[in-house]
């Protein structure tokens, strides 16, 4: 067994242990008084996987959302993007989010990426979500989401570019145990086009699917785990496959007060493949780790 394989196995055993601990907690907490648990919005309980909830009509909130990517094959790599988002729900079916993005890069001695340590106002993102299937009519609630984004710096390298990305998602969830256990499923298609200074446009796309379980362990606190499978292509429509990756990790949600919540997730790449490489992970198209931290302040 190689050291890389042993390390991968260690990671998987650690996640299996974490999953077993969550399951044990689920079983123990069955004895708790269920009347203390009330309904919760599912949008932010699954980590990177987004739930179907579109908020409450008339609700307005400020949400700083930070996504960080950490670790390449060599050197030190950290890149984060924070969206300073204004979210509002104009009616009982749709939700709109808008805001500027701020990026931070700390890159040293990473193959094919120039060293960089900087923060920058990067671009602007919008998100439009529409609930197409309500729970009650079916066990699953389903929301379609479209998230166009413009960047002035490359998300991975920090180079000056013009980048347009359109993240589209199908967000589905089901309540497996009333007010307690939830299943979340996402389908992702994310085409983007990028032009470096005075260069030609280059297109790429990512396809992904995820499954997540989230359990309200004590009132207003939800813990869980999610699994993502991502495929990366050159071209907007799956033209040339360049590699895939599997991410696995824990999720956390806490409604701190009626108007404030926090949601966090940490994913580790547990398997991956780069076209033309025998590596156990895909660190060309994706990072070794990724994290998501969200705060919501309703007003």
């Amino acid at each position, binding site marked *: 067994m190689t050291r890389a394989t042993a390390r991968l196995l260690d990671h998987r055993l650690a996640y299996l242990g974490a999953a077993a601990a969550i399951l044990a907690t689920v079983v123990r907490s069955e004895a708790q008084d269920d009347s203390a648990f*009330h309904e919760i919005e599912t949008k932010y309980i699954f980590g990177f996987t987004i739930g179907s909830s579109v908020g409450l009509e008339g609700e307005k909130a400020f949400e700083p959302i930070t996504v960080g990517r950490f670790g390449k094959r060599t050197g030190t790599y950290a890149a984060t993007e924070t969206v300073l988002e204004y979210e509002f729900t*104009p009616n*009982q079916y*749709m939700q709109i989010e808008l805001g500027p993005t701020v990026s931070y890069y700390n890159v040293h001695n990473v193959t094919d990426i120039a060293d960089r340590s900087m923060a920058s106002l990067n671009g602007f993102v919008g998100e*439009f979500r529409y609930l197409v299937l309500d729970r009650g009519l079916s066990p699953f609630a389903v929301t379609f989401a479209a998230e166009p984004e413009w960047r002035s710096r490359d998300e991975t390298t920090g180079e000056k570019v013009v980048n347009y990305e*359109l993240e589209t998602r199908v967000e589905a969830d089901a309540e497996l145990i009333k007010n307690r256990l939830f299943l979340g499923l996402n389908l992702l298609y994310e085409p983007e086009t990028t032009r470096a200074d005075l260069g030609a*446009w280059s*297109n790429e796309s990512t396809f992904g699917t995820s499954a997540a379980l989230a359990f309200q362990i004590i009132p207003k606190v939800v813990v869980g785990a999610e699994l993502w499978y991502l495929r990366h292509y050159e071209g907007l429509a799956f033209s040339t496959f360049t590699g895939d990756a599997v991410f696995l990790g824990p999720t956390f949600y806490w409604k701190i007060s009626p108007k404030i919540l926090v949601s966090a997730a940490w994913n580790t790449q547990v398997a991956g493949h780069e076209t033309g490489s025998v590596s156990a992970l895909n660190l060309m198209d994706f990072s070794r780790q990724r994290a998501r931290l969200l705060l919501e302040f309703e007003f």
Partner: protein
Amino acid sequence: MRMAFAVLNPFAGVLVFVTTMLAFSASPHAQQPDAVAISVKGHHFQPAEIRAPANRPLILRVKNLDATPMEFESVSLRVEKVVAPGGEGVINIRPLAPGRYEFMDDFHQETRGTLIVQ
């Protein structure tokens, strides 16, 4: 020109998506809504359990008889409305599938009730 189209094309898709969303969201309900009244007194809903027919739009009139403001809120109904002391809030609710829908006063979270749709 071709490249400009390639760049704009996904965003044209978003424009169509948003326009469609707004069109669906803005379409008026064909049915006349049913009206249900409820009040809050001593930080209790009166009655705590209300009923409404399924698959019909609903107008919920919430009277706040307390001396403090309340916020009617429901995750499953997807509505929230602040009602001033002595005031009345009018809440439009979409046609609902049969089931039990929790609601509460978000300012006094022990104040809870249920809408039973059948």
